Protein backbone atom coordinates (compact mmCIF):
# COMPACT_ATOMS: atom_id res chain seq x y z
CA UNK A 1 0.00 0.00 0.00
CA UNK A 2 1.02 3.60 -0.57
CA UNK A 3 2.98 4.89 2.46
CA UNK A 4 1.05 8.17 2.33
CA UNK A 5 -2.27 6.33 2.38
CA UNK A 6 -1.14 4.40 5.47
CA UNK A 7 0.02 7.55 7.24
CA UNK A 8 -3.33 9.21 6.43
CA UNK A 9 -5.31 6.26 7.77
CA UNK A 10 -3.16 6.20 10.89
CA UNK A 11 -3.49 9.90 11.64
CA UNK A 12 -7.25 9.95 11.03
CA UNK A 13 -7.74 6.88 13.20
CA UNK A 14 -5.77 8.54 16.01
CA UNK A 15 -8.14 11.50 15.95
CA UNK A 16 -11.23 9.32 15.78
CA UNK A 17 -9.91 7.30 18.73
CA UNK A 18 -9.34 10.50 20.75
CA UNK A 19 -12.75 11.90 19.88
CA UNK A 20 -14.93 8.90 20.66
CA UNK A 21 -13.76 8.47 24.24
CA UNK A 22 -12.97 12.03 25.29
CA UNK A 23 -15.98 12.34 27.62
CA UNK A 24 -16.56 9.19 29.63
CA UNK A 25 -17.77 9.03 33.22
CA UNK A 26 -15.49 7.11 35.54
CA UNK A 27 -18.29 4.56 35.96
CA UNK A 28 -17.62 3.32 32.46
CA UNK A 29 -13.82 3.32 32.54
CA UNK A 30 -13.55 -0.36 33.35
CA UNK A 31 -16.00 -1.66 30.70
CA UNK A 32 -14.55 0.70 28.10
CA UNK A 33 -11.03 -0.49 28.75
CA UNK A 34 -12.23 -4.06 28.61
CA UNK A 35 -14.08 -3.43 25.33
CA UNK A 36 -11.07 -1.73 23.74
CA UNK A 37 -9.00 -4.66 24.96
CA UNK A 38 -11.31 -7.07 23.15
CA UNK A 39 -11.05 -5.03 19.94
CA UNK A 40 -7.29 -5.45 19.73
CA UNK A 41 -7.96 -9.19 19.81
CA UNK A 42 -8.57 -8.68 16.10
CA UNK A 43 -4.85 -9.46 15.80
CA UNK A 44 -6.40 -12.92 15.36
CA UNK A 45 -6.82 -11.94 11.71
CA UNK A 46 -3.08 -11.37 11.47
CA UNK A 47 -2.36 -14.64 13.25
CA UNK A 48 -4.52 -16.55 10.75
CA UNK A 49 -2.79 -14.84 7.81
CA UNK A 50 0.69 -15.82 9.04
CA UNK A 51 -0.47 -19.36 9.87
CA UNK A 52 -1.71 -19.66 6.27
CA UNK A 53 1.69 -18.90 4.78
CA UNK A 54 3.82 -20.63 7.43
CA UNK A 55 6.38 -22.89 5.75
CA UNK A 56 8.42 -24.35 8.56
CA UNK A 57 7.31 -26.13 11.71
CA UNK A 58 8.73 -23.31 13.80
CA UNK A 59 6.65 -20.71 11.95
CA UNK A 60 3.51 -22.82 12.17
CA UNK A 61 4.04 -23.58 15.87
CA UNK A 62 4.44 -19.90 16.73
CA UNK A 63 1.49 -18.95 14.52
CA UNK A 64 -0.75 -21.54 16.18
CA UNK A 65 0.26 -20.19 19.60
CA UNK A 66 -0.58 -16.70 18.35
CA UNK A 67 -4.03 -17.86 17.21
CA UNK A 68 -4.77 -19.42 20.60
CA UNK A 69 -3.71 -16.27 22.47
CA UNK A 70 -5.52 -13.91 20.09
CA UNK A 71 -8.75 -15.93 20.29
CA UNK A 72 -8.61 -15.81 24.08
CA UNK A 73 -8.08 -12.07 23.93
CA UNK A 74 -10.89 -11.39 21.48
CA UNK A 75 -13.63 -13.77 22.58
CA UNK A 76 -12.88 -13.61 26.30
CA UNK A 77 -12.69 -9.82 26.11
CA UNK A 78 -16.10 -9.36 24.52
CA UNK A 79 -17.76 -11.93 26.82
CA UNK A 80 -16.40 -10.39 30.02
CA UNK A 81 -17.32 -6.88 28.87
CA UNK A 82 -20.86 -8.04 28.18
CA UNK A 83 -21.07 -9.54 31.66
CA UNK A 84 -20.06 -6.24 33.24
CA UNK A 85 -22.54 -4.24 31.19
CA UNK A 86 -25.36 -6.69 31.80
CA UNK A 87 -25.28 -5.57 35.43
CA UNK A 88 -25.44 -1.91 34.54
CA UNK A 89 -28.60 -2.56 32.61
CA UNK A 90 -30.23 -4.16 35.64
CA UNK A 91 -29.87 -1.17 37.94
CA UNK A 92 -31.48 1.43 35.69
CA UNK A 93 -34.96 -0.01 36.18
Amino acid at each position, binding site marked *: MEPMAIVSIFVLAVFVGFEVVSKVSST*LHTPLMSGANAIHGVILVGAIIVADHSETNLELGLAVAAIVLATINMVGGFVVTDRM*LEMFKGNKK
Partner: protein
Amino acid sequence: MSRTLYDLVGLAAGVAFILALKGLSHPKTARRGNLIGAFGATLATLVVFFYANPGSSLPLNNLGWILGAMVVGLLVGVPAARKVQMTQMPQLVALFNGVGGGAAALVAIVEYLHLGPKATTAEVVFTVFTVIVGCVSFSGSIITFLKLQELMTTRPVIFPAGRFIIAATLVSVIGVGGWVVSALGTTPLLVLAALSLLFGVLFVLPVGGADVPIVISLLNAFTGLTVAASGYVLDSVLLIIAGTLVGASGTILTRLMAEAMGRSLFGTLFGAFTAKPQDNSGAVEDRPVRSGSPDDVAILLNYARRVVIVPGFGLAVAQAQHTVRELADMMIAKGIDVAYGIHPVAGRMPGHMNVLLAEANVPYEQLAEMDEVNPTFGQTDVAIVIGANDVVNPAAQTSPGCPIYGMPILEVANAANIIFLKRSMRPGFAGIENELLYDPKTMLLFGDAKASLTKVVSALKAL
Protein backbone atom coordinates in the same frame (compact mmCIF):
# COMPACT_ATOMS: atom_id res chain seq x y z
CA MET B 1 -13.28 -13.26 -3.06
CA SER B 2 -11.72 -10.22 -4.67
CA ARG B 3 -9.30 -7.96 -2.84
CA THR B 4 -11.79 -5.08 -3.12
CA LEU B 5 -14.56 -7.02 -1.42
CA TYR B 6 -12.11 -8.25 1.23
CA ASP B 7 -11.01 -4.69 1.96
CA LEU B 8 -14.61 -3.44 2.03
CA VAL B 9 -15.53 -6.02 4.65
CA GLY B 10 -12.43 -4.97 6.59
CA LEU B 11 -13.58 -1.35 6.38
CA ALA B 12 -17.03 -2.34 7.65
CA ALA B 13 -15.39 -4.05 10.63
CA GLY B 14 -13.31 -0.92 11.25
CA VAL B 15 -16.49 1.20 11.28
CA ALA B 16 -18.06 -1.31 13.68
CA PHE B 17 -15.12 -0.79 16.06
CA ILE B 18 -15.57 2.99 15.96
CA LEU B 19 -19.28 2.59 16.73
CA ALA B 20 -18.38 0.12 19.48
CA LEU B 21 -16.04 2.57 21.25
CA LYS B 22 -18.57 5.36 20.79
CA GLY B 23 -21.33 3.17 22.26
CA LEU B 24 -19.17 2.06 25.18
CA SER B 25 -18.72 5.70 26.20
CA HIS B 26 -22.38 6.14 27.25
CA PRO B 27 -24.22 4.07 29.85
CA LYS B 28 -27.34 3.60 27.74
CA THR B 29 -25.58 2.37 24.62
CA ALA B 30 -22.66 0.57 26.24
CA ARG B 31 -23.95 -2.96 25.93
CA ARG B 32 -25.04 -2.51 22.35
CA GLY B 33 -21.67 -0.94 21.60
CA ASN B 34 -19.87 -3.99 22.88
CA LEU B 35 -22.06 -6.27 20.76
CA ILE B 36 -21.35 -4.16 17.67
CA GLY B 37 -17.64 -4.57 18.39
CA ALA B 38 -18.04 -8.33 18.75
CA PHE B 39 -19.94 -8.39 15.46
CA GLY B 40 -17.16 -6.47 13.71
CA ALA B 41 -14.50 -8.79 15.08
CA THR B 42 -16.46 -11.88 14.01
CA LEU B 43 -16.97 -10.46 10.53
CA ALA B 44 -13.27 -9.64 10.19
CA THR B 45 -12.28 -13.12 11.31
CA LEU B 46 -14.71 -14.96 9.04
CA VAL B 47 -13.73 -13.08 5.89
CA VAL B 48 -10.07 -14.13 6.20
CA PHE B 49 -11.11 -17.68 5.38
CA PHE B 50 -12.52 -16.62 2.01
CA TYR B 51 -9.67 -14.56 0.64
CA ALA B 52 -6.51 -16.05 -0.83
CA ASN B 53 -3.47 -13.89 -0.14
CA PRO B 54 -1.04 -13.41 -3.05
CA GLY B 55 0.98 -16.62 -3.41
CA SER B 56 -1.59 -18.59 -1.45
CA SER B 57 -4.81 -20.36 -2.39
CA LEU B 58 -8.11 -21.44 -0.88
CA PRO B 59 -8.82 -23.22 1.34
CA LEU B 60 -6.16 -21.72 3.59
CA ASN B 61 -3.04 -23.79 4.20
CA ASN B 62 -2.82 -25.40 7.61
CA LEU B 63 -6.60 -24.95 7.93
CA GLY B 64 -6.87 -27.76 10.45
CA TRP B 65 -4.24 -26.19 12.68
CA ILE B 66 -5.91 -22.77 12.41
CA LEU B 67 -9.37 -24.02 13.33
CA GLY B 68 -8.01 -26.28 16.07
CA ALA B 69 -6.10 -23.38 17.64
CA MET B 70 -9.23 -21.20 17.54
CA VAL B 71 -11.24 -23.92 19.28
CA VAL B 72 -8.58 -24.16 22.00
CA GLY B 73 -8.70 -20.37 22.42
CA LEU B 74 -12.50 -20.48 22.70
CA LEU B 75 -12.39 -23.30 25.23
CA VAL B 76 -10.00 -21.30 27.40
CA GLY B 77 -11.36 -17.79 26.92
CA VAL B 78 -15.11 -18.22 27.17
CA PRO B 79 -15.27 -20.21 30.43
CA ALA B 80 -12.67 -17.89 31.99
CA ALA B 81 -14.76 -14.84 31.07
CA ARG B 82 -18.04 -16.45 32.15
CA LYS B 83 -16.96 -17.91 35.45
CA VAL B 84 -14.71 -15.18 36.79
CA GLN B 85 -15.90 -13.56 40.01
CA MET B 86 -16.68 -9.90 39.41
CA THR B 87 -14.18 -9.06 42.14
CA GLN B 88 -11.41 -10.67 40.10
CA MET B 89 -12.43 -9.16 36.80
CA PRO B 90 -9.66 -6.51 36.64
CA GLN B 91 -6.92 -9.12 36.65
CA LEU B 92 -8.72 -11.12 33.98
CA VAL B 93 -8.81 -8.03 31.75
CA ALA B 94 -5.09 -7.64 32.44
CA LEU B 95 -4.46 -11.23 31.36
CA PHE B 96 -6.55 -10.86 28.20
CA ASN B 97 -4.57 -7.77 27.33
CA GLY B 98 -1.30 -9.57 27.96
CA VAL B 99 -2.11 -12.51 25.71
CA GLY B 100 -3.17 -10.03 22.99
CA GLY B 101 0.25 -8.38 23.22
CA GLY B 102 1.91 -11.79 23.16
CA ALA B 103 -0.08 -12.75 20.07
CA ALA B 104 0.99 -9.55 18.27
CA ALA B 105 4.65 -10.23 19.11
CA LEU B 106 4.37 -13.82 17.86
CA VAL B 107 2.70 -12.71 14.62
CA ALA B 108 5.55 -10.26 14.05
CA ILE B 109 8.18 -12.94 14.71
CA VAL B 110 6.53 -15.43 12.33
CA GLU B 111 6.23 -12.83 9.59
CA TYR B 112 9.88 -11.90 10.10
CA LEU B 113 10.99 -15.54 9.81
CA HIS B 114 8.79 -15.89 6.74
CA LEU B 115 10.02 -12.78 4.91
CA GLY B 116 13.68 -13.43 5.73
CA PRO B 117 16.05 -11.26 3.69
CA LYS B 118 13.14 -10.12 1.46
CA ALA B 119 11.85 -7.83 4.19
CA THR B 120 12.08 -4.10 3.49
CA THR B 121 13.68 -1.85 6.09
CA ALA B 122 10.29 -0.36 6.95
CA GLU B 123 8.86 -3.83 7.54
CA VAL B 124 11.77 -4.74 9.81
CA VAL B 125 11.39 -1.51 11.79
CA PHE B 126 7.69 -2.18 12.35
CA THR B 127 8.48 -5.80 13.27
CA VAL B 128 11.03 -4.67 15.84
CA PHE B 129 8.48 -2.22 17.27
CA THR B 130 5.81 -4.91 17.51
CA VAL B 131 8.13 -7.43 19.15
CA ILE B 132 9.36 -4.92 21.74
CA VAL B 133 6.00 -3.45 22.67
CA GLY B 134 4.10 -6.75 22.41
CA CYS B 135 6.56 -8.48 24.74
CA VAL B 136 6.51 -5.58 27.21
CA SER B 137 2.72 -5.68 27.20
CA PHE B 138 2.73 -9.45 27.72
CA SER B 139 5.16 -9.67 30.64
CA GLY B 140 3.97 -6.38 32.15
CA SER B 141 0.38 -7.61 32.15
CA ILE B 142 1.42 -10.85 33.84
CA ILE B 143 2.99 -8.82 36.65
CA THR B 144 -0.16 -6.67 37.00
CA PHE B 145 -2.15 -9.91 37.18
CA LEU B 146 0.11 -11.27 39.94
CA LYS B 147 -0.23 -8.00 41.85
CA LEU B 148 -4.02 -7.82 41.58
CA GLN B 149 -4.42 -11.51 42.42
CA GLU B 150 -2.13 -10.82 45.39
CA LEU B 151 0.14 -13.65 44.36
CA MET B 152 2.95 -11.19 44.95
CA THR B 153 3.31 -8.07 47.06
CA THR B 154 1.09 -5.17 46.06
CA ARG B 155 3.63 -2.66 47.31
CA PRO B 156 6.05 -1.05 44.90
CA VAL B 157 9.01 -3.37 44.42
CA ILE B 158 12.19 -1.34 44.53
CA PHE B 159 15.61 -2.86 44.29
CA PRO B 160 19.02 -1.25 44.71
CA ALA B 161 19.98 0.84 41.69
CA GLY B 162 16.59 -0.07 40.24
CA ARG B 163 16.27 2.92 38.00
CA PHE B 164 19.72 2.31 36.54
CA ILE B 165 18.93 -1.34 35.83
CA ILE B 166 15.67 -0.32 34.16
CA ALA B 167 17.37 2.40 32.13
CA ALA B 168 20.15 0.00 31.11
CA THR B 169 17.60 -2.61 30.03
CA LEU B 170 15.74 -0.03 27.96
CA VAL B 171 18.97 1.10 26.32
CA SER B 172 19.91 -2.48 25.46
CA VAL B 173 16.40 -3.14 24.09
CA ILE B 174 16.79 -0.18 21.76
CA GLY B 175 20.35 -1.20 20.91
CA VAL B 176 19.38 -4.76 20.04
CA GLY B 177 16.43 -3.36 18.06
CA GLY B 178 18.92 -1.40 15.98
CA TRP B 179 21.03 -4.54 15.61
CA VAL B 180 18.03 -6.45 14.22
CA VAL B 181 17.34 -3.68 11.71
CA SER B 182 20.95 -3.53 10.51
CA ALA B 183 22.04 -7.18 10.70
CA LEU B 184 18.82 -9.19 10.25
CA GLY B 185 18.68 -12.71 11.63
CA THR B 186 16.72 -14.88 13.97
CA THR B 187 19.09 -14.77 16.94
CA PRO B 188 19.07 -10.98 17.38
CA LEU B 189 15.27 -11.02 17.17
CA LEU B 190 14.97 -13.65 19.90
CA VAL B 191 17.44 -11.73 22.09
CA LEU B 192 15.28 -8.68 21.50
CA ALA B 193 12.15 -10.56 22.57
CA ALA B 194 13.83 -11.85 25.74
CA LEU B 195 15.13 -8.41 26.70
CA SER B 196 11.74 -6.85 26.04
CA LEU B 197 10.03 -9.41 28.27
CA LEU B 198 12.53 -8.54 31.00
CA PHE B 199 11.90 -4.84 30.52
CA GLY B 200 8.13 -5.38 30.87
CA VAL B 201 8.68 -7.03 34.26
CA LEU B 202 11.08 -4.34 35.51
CA PHE B 203 8.78 -1.59 34.23
CA VAL B 204 5.72 -2.75 36.22
CA LEU B 205 7.42 -4.01 39.43
CA PRO B 206 7.90 -0.53 40.98
CA VAL B 207 4.23 0.40 40.46
CA GLY B 208 2.16 0.37 43.65
CA GLY B 209 -0.97 -1.76 43.87
CA ALA B 210 -3.42 1.15 43.75
CA ASP B 211 -1.89 2.43 40.51
CA VAL B 212 -1.96 -0.90 38.71
CA PRO B 213 -5.21 -0.16 36.79
CA ILE B 214 -3.56 2.84 35.12
CA VAL B 215 -0.72 0.60 33.98
CA ILE B 216 -3.16 -1.99 32.62
CA SER B 217 -4.84 0.74 30.61
CA LEU B 218 -1.48 1.96 29.32
CA LEU B 219 -0.40 -1.55 28.31
CA ASN B 220 -3.79 -1.92 26.62
CA ALA B 221 -3.01 1.13 24.49
CA PHE B 222 0.45 -0.32 23.77
CA THR B 223 -1.05 -3.56 22.51
CA GLY B 224 -3.31 -1.53 20.23
CA LEU B 225 -0.28 0.11 18.66
CA THR B 226 1.42 -3.25 18.06
CA VAL B 227 -1.71 -4.41 16.23
CA ALA B 228 -1.53 -1.30 14.05
CA ALA B 229 2.15 -1.97 13.28
CA SER B 230 1.34 -5.59 12.38
CA GLY B 231 -1.31 -4.23 10.03
CA TYR B 232 1.41 -2.40 8.13
CA VAL B 233 3.61 -5.49 7.79
CA LEU B 234 0.68 -7.74 6.85
CA ASP B 235 -0.86 -5.18 4.49
CA SER B 236 -4.17 -5.13 6.39
CA VAL B 237 -6.07 -1.84 6.60
CA LEU B 238 -8.37 -3.34 9.20
CA LEU B 239 -5.54 -4.08 11.63
CA ILE B 240 -4.17 -0.57 11.15
CA ILE B 241 -7.54 1.03 11.88
CA ALA B 242 -8.45 -1.23 14.81
CA GLY B 243 -5.01 -1.05 16.40
CA THR B 244 -4.74 2.72 16.05
CA LEU B 245 -8.24 3.23 17.49
CA VAL B 246 -7.38 1.20 20.56
CA GLY B 247 -3.99 2.87 20.89
CA ALA B 248 -5.50 6.37 20.73
CA SER B 249 -8.59 5.74 22.85
CA GLY B 250 -6.51 3.73 25.32
CA THR B 251 -4.11 6.66 25.73
CA ILE B 252 -6.99 9.05 26.46
CA LEU B 253 -8.55 6.54 28.83
CA THR B 254 -5.25 6.13 30.67
CA ARG B 255 -5.10 9.89 31.13
CA LEU B 256 -8.73 10.04 32.32
CA MET B 257 -8.09 7.27 34.82
CA ALA B 258 -4.95 8.92 36.12
CA GLU B 259 -6.92 12.17 36.50
CA ALA B 260 -9.68 10.40 38.42
CA MET B 261 -7.04 9.16 40.83
CA GLY B 262 -5.29 12.52 40.96
CA ARG B 263 -2.08 11.01 39.67
CA SER B 264 0.22 12.02 36.89
CA LEU B 265 1.18 9.23 34.56
CA PHE B 266 4.82 9.92 35.29
CA GLY B 267 4.21 9.76 39.04
CA THR B 268 2.42 6.44 38.60
CA LEU B 269 5.24 4.82 36.70
CA PHE B 270 8.25 6.28 38.41
CA GLY B 271 6.86 7.60 41.71
CA ALA B 272 8.34 4.74 43.71
CA PHE B 273 11.85 5.89 42.85
CA THR B 274 11.38 9.48 43.87
CA ALA B 275 9.23 8.95 46.98
CA LYS B 276 10.89 9.36 50.33
CA PRO B 277 10.87 6.23 52.44
CA GLN B 278 8.22 6.31 55.15
CA ASP B 279 9.78 6.78 58.54
CA ASN B 280 6.79 6.57 60.85
CA SER B 281 5.57 3.09 59.99
CA GLY B 282 6.83 1.50 63.21
CA ALA B 283 5.70 4.23 65.56
CA VAL B 284 1.98 4.22 64.92
CA GLU B 285 1.12 0.58 65.26
CA ASP B 286 0.92 0.33 69.03
CA ARG B 287 -1.49 3.22 69.54
CA PRO B 288 -4.91 2.41 70.99
CA VAL B 289 -7.98 2.21 68.78
CA ARG B 290 -11.62 2.33 69.82
CA SER B 291 -13.45 -0.80 68.84
CA GLY B 292 -17.20 -1.22 69.27
CA SER B 293 -19.86 -3.89 69.17
CA PRO B 294 -22.59 -4.30 66.54
CA ASP B 295 -25.05 -2.90 69.12
CA ASP B 296 -23.00 0.28 69.51
CA VAL B 297 -23.05 0.69 65.74
CA ALA B 298 -26.81 0.07 65.54
CA ILE B 299 -27.52 2.69 68.21
CA LEU B 300 -25.34 5.21 66.46
CA LEU B 301 -27.15 4.56 63.18
CA ASN B 302 -30.60 4.61 64.75
CA TYR B 303 -30.22 8.21 65.93
CA ALA B 304 -28.50 9.50 62.83
CA ARG B 305 -30.19 11.76 60.31
CA ARG B 306 -27.76 11.25 57.50
CA VAL B 307 -25.52 8.25 56.87
CA VAL B 308 -22.99 7.82 54.08
CA ILE B 309 -21.84 4.31 53.24
CA VAL B 310 -18.35 4.09 51.78
CA PRO B 311 -17.94 0.67 50.18
CA GLY B 312 -14.54 -0.68 49.32
CA PHE B 313 -13.04 -3.80 47.87
CA GLY B 314 -13.33 -5.60 51.23
CA LEU B 315 -17.11 -5.40 50.91
CA ALA B 316 -16.99 -7.20 47.61
CA VAL B 317 -14.54 -9.81 48.85
CA ALA B 318 -16.88 -10.64 51.74
CA GLN B 319 -19.81 -10.76 49.26
CA ALA B 320 -21.61 -8.34 51.57
CA GLN B 321 -23.28 -6.23 48.86
CA HIS B 322 -26.71 -7.68 49.57
CA THR B 323 -26.41 -7.29 53.33
CA VAL B 324 -25.34 -3.68 53.00
CA ARG B 325 -28.36 -3.01 50.81
CA GLU B 326 -30.58 -4.59 53.47
CA LEU B 327 -29.07 -2.27 56.07
CA ALA B 328 -29.52 0.75 53.81
CA ASP B 329 -33.16 -0.15 53.08
CA MET B 330 -33.83 -0.49 56.79
CA MET B 331 -32.31 2.91 57.55
CA ILE B 332 -34.30 4.50 54.73
CA ALA B 333 -37.46 2.98 56.20
CA LYS B 334 -36.59 4.74 59.48
CA GLY B 335 -36.42 8.04 57.61
CA ILE B 336 -32.63 8.27 57.61
CA ASP B 337 -31.01 9.93 54.62
CA VAL B 338 -28.70 7.29 53.11
CA ALA B 339 -26.19 7.61 50.28
CA TYR B 340 -23.33 5.48 49.01
CA GLY B 341 -20.17 7.49 48.51
CA ILE B 342 -18.37 5.93 45.59
CA HIS B 343 -14.74 6.77 45.08
CA PRO B 344 -13.82 6.72 41.38
CA VAL B 345 -11.31 3.95 42.01
CA ALA B 346 -13.15 2.08 44.75
CA GLY B 347 -12.53 -1.58 44.14
CA ARG B 348 -9.56 -2.29 42.00
CA MET B 349 -10.34 -0.24 38.92
CA PRO B 350 -12.31 2.91 38.07
CA GLY B 351 -15.99 2.00 37.96
CA HIS B 352 -15.39 -1.43 39.49
CA MET B 353 -17.48 -0.67 42.60
CA ASN B 354 -20.42 0.48 40.48
CA VAL B 355 -20.36 -2.88 38.73
CA LEU B 356 -20.23 -4.73 42.04
CA LEU B 357 -23.10 -2.76 43.62
CA ALA B 358 -25.16 -3.04 40.46
CA GLU B 359 -24.78 -6.79 40.87
CA ALA B 360 -26.58 -6.44 44.25
CA ASN B 361 -29.36 -4.29 42.72
CA VAL B 362 -28.47 -1.18 44.67
CA PRO B 363 -30.60 1.63 43.15
CA TYR B 364 -28.57 3.85 40.87
CA GLU B 365 -29.91 7.06 42.51
CA GLN B 366 -28.34 6.18 45.86
CA LEU B 367 -24.83 6.02 44.38
CA ALA B 368 -23.13 9.38 44.78
CA GLU B 369 -19.86 10.19 43.09
CA MET B 370 -16.99 11.60 45.11
CA ASP B 371 -17.39 15.24 44.07
CA GLU B 372 -21.09 15.06 44.94
CA VAL B 373 -20.70 13.49 48.34
CA ASN B 374 -17.58 15.21 49.69
CA PRO B 375 -19.23 18.58 50.48
CA THR B 376 -21.98 16.77 52.42
CA PHE B 377 -19.76 15.01 54.98
CA GLY B 378 -20.00 18.10 57.23
CA GLN B 379 -23.74 17.42 57.63
CA THR B 380 -23.29 13.66 57.89
CA ASP B 381 -23.81 12.04 61.29
CA VAL B 382 -22.23 8.70 60.49
CA ALA B 383 -19.90 7.56 57.74
CA ILE B 384 -19.64 3.76 57.52
CA VAL B 385 -16.49 2.65 55.78
CA ILE B 386 -16.86 -0.97 54.75
CA GLY B 387 -13.73 -2.74 53.63
CA ALA B 388 -12.20 0.44 52.23
CA ASN B 389 -9.03 2.06 53.40
CA ASP B 390 -6.86 3.86 50.86
CA VAL B 391 -9.76 5.86 49.37
CA VAL B 392 -10.46 7.51 52.75
CA ASN B 393 -6.86 7.77 53.93
CA PRO B 394 -6.03 11.41 54.83
CA ALA B 395 -2.37 10.63 54.18
CA ALA B 396 -3.23 11.27 50.53
CA GLN B 397 -3.69 14.93 51.47
CA THR B 398 -1.30 15.38 54.35
CA SER B 399 1.76 13.26 53.79
CA PRO B 400 3.83 14.16 50.73
CA GLY B 401 5.96 11.24 49.67
CA CYS B 402 3.49 8.51 50.52
CA PRO B 403 2.53 6.41 47.49
CA ILE B 404 -1.05 7.73 47.29
CA TYR B 405 -0.18 11.39 47.93
CA GLY B 406 -2.32 13.61 45.72
CA MET B 407 -5.07 11.07 45.17
CA PRO B 408 -8.46 12.69 45.86
CA ILE B 409 -10.15 10.96 48.78
CA LEU B 410 -13.60 10.72 50.32
CA GLU B 411 -13.34 13.16 53.20
CA VAL B 412 -15.06 11.01 55.82
CA ALA B 413 -13.00 12.74 58.51
CA ASN B 414 -15.52 15.62 58.29
CA ALA B 415 -18.41 13.41 59.40
CA ALA B 416 -19.48 13.51 63.07
CA ASN B 417 -18.81 9.80 63.55
CA ILE B 418 -16.84 7.30 61.53
CA ILE B 419 -17.36 3.55 61.65
CA PHE B 420 -14.77 1.28 60.08
CA LEU B 421 -15.72 -2.29 59.31
CA LYS B 422 -12.41 -4.08 58.98
CA ARG B 423 -11.08 -7.58 59.16
CA SER B 424 -7.90 -6.50 60.93
CA MET B 425 -5.58 -3.56 61.36
CA ARG B 426 -3.82 -4.55 58.17
CA PRO B 427 -3.25 -1.55 55.89
CA GLY B 428 -5.04 -1.23 52.56
CA PHE B 429 -4.01 -2.30 49.08
CA ALA B 430 -1.46 0.50 48.78
CA GLY B 431 0.16 -0.67 52.02
CA ILE B 432 -0.09 2.62 53.93
CA GLU B 433 -1.06 3.14 57.54
CA ASN B 434 -4.36 5.02 57.97
CA GLU B 435 -4.30 7.75 60.65
CA LEU B 436 -8.08 7.89 60.65
CA LEU B 437 -8.26 4.56 62.46
CA TYR B 438 -6.79 6.24 65.55
CA ASP B 439 -9.11 9.25 65.44
CA PRO B 440 -11.19 9.60 68.64
CA LYS B 441 -14.45 9.80 66.68
CA THR B 442 -13.70 6.57 64.86
CA MET B 443 -15.21 3.29 66.02
CA LEU B 444 -13.90 0.02 64.64
CA LEU B 445 -15.96 -3.08 64.16
CA PHE B 446 -13.64 -5.98 63.51
CA GLY B 447 -14.59 -9.10 61.60
CA ASP B 448 -15.80 -10.30 58.25
CA ALA B 449 -17.83 -7.49 56.63
CA LYS B 450 -20.80 -9.71 55.90
CA ALA B 451 -20.97 -11.25 59.38
CA SER B 452 -20.57 -7.83 61.03
CA LEU B 453 -23.25 -6.25 58.86
CA THR B 454 -25.66 -9.08 59.55
CA LYS B 455 -25.19 -8.50 63.29
CA VAL B 456 -25.72 -4.75 62.88
CA VAL B 457 -28.91 -5.41 60.89
CA SER B 458 -30.37 -7.63 63.62
CA ALA B 459 -29.29 -5.22 66.35
CA LEU B 460 -30.98 -2.39 64.46
CA LYS B 461 -34.14 -4.49 64.09
CA ALA B 462 -34.23 -5.04 67.84
CA LEU B 463 -34.12 -1.33 68.64
